[in-house]
């Protein structure tokens, strides 16, 4: 599948999921645009295609995950590390599922259970030129969504 086609689908799905799940409206960062500064702490999540080599990866600023948790679960509670990881894992799950539908993948293609963890330092959040990825800006907080191929 062409890089541009995947990027277009990722943009549509991420905007749809964040609007409907978190009432958030991110802006897509164009590839020739400068990226806002990177946070000190962030999270990463991955959802692999079962018996395949493709994995959807998400990288996010820690503050964005906190904001997502507030919008989803309520702002009146402190969030444990496990809550934040669970919120980000579920986000990856929803984006991956919707992406499969949007790309019209064959019904035999299924997803594995997602995994998520804290990531320090956040160098993986940097854009990789030419990669099948899209960067999003949430008023200074960053999200990177990438489709990567691994040798398994």
């Amino acid at each position, binding site marked *: 599948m062409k890089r541009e086609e995947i990027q277009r689908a990722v943009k549509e799905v991420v905007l749809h999921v964040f609007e*409907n799940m978190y009432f958030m409206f991110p802006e897509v960062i164009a590839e020739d645009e400068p990226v806002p500064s990177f946070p000190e702490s962030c999270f990463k999540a991955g959802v692999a295609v079962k018996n395949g080599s493709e994995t959807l990866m998400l990288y996010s600023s820690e503050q964005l995950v906190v904001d997502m948790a507030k919008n989803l*679960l309520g702002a009146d509670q402190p969030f444990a590390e496990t809550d934040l990881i*669970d919120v980000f894992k579920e986000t990856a799950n929803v984006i991956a*599922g919707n992406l*499969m*539908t949007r790309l019209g993948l064959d019904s035999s293609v299924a997803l594995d*259970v*997602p995994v998520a963890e804290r990531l320090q330092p956040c160098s993986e959040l940097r854009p990789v030129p030419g990669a099948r990825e899209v960067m999003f800006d949430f008023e200074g907080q960053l999200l990177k969504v990438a489709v990567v191929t691994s040798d398994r």
Partner: protein
Amino acid sequence: MAFNVLIVDDSSTMRSVIRKTIEMSGFDVGQFFEAGNGREALSVLDKEWADIILTDLHMPEMDGRALLKALHAQATVSTTPVVIVTTEGREERLDELLGMGARACIKKPFRPEEIRNILMDVLGMDEEAMQDKEALEGCDF
């Protein structure tokens, strides 16, 4: 009549969101039960009665599809309505789940009114009864 609801999802976040959505929708819920996968759900159902089950599909240990099969094989719970809450949107997959006995599918991300409408339909409630109840409780959904 109060309904007992079993929510099955490996994400505690999603269980919490579904629970809050149902509470806000004005349903008369007796008890909420929660399980992190199909096996835990079956264990809950060994001890408790649920009037409706909302389950995710992708879960570790025992997924939603295996849970549907297991429920179908148990006489005591084979008629309990099961609603799948999933990111899956491909027609073939959804048709397959409905063919396996699921009563409805809700696609993530969902809006609160989608859960409300599907639960009303599955539980056989009408809008008028819900509005009367909301008026009584002052709950404006």
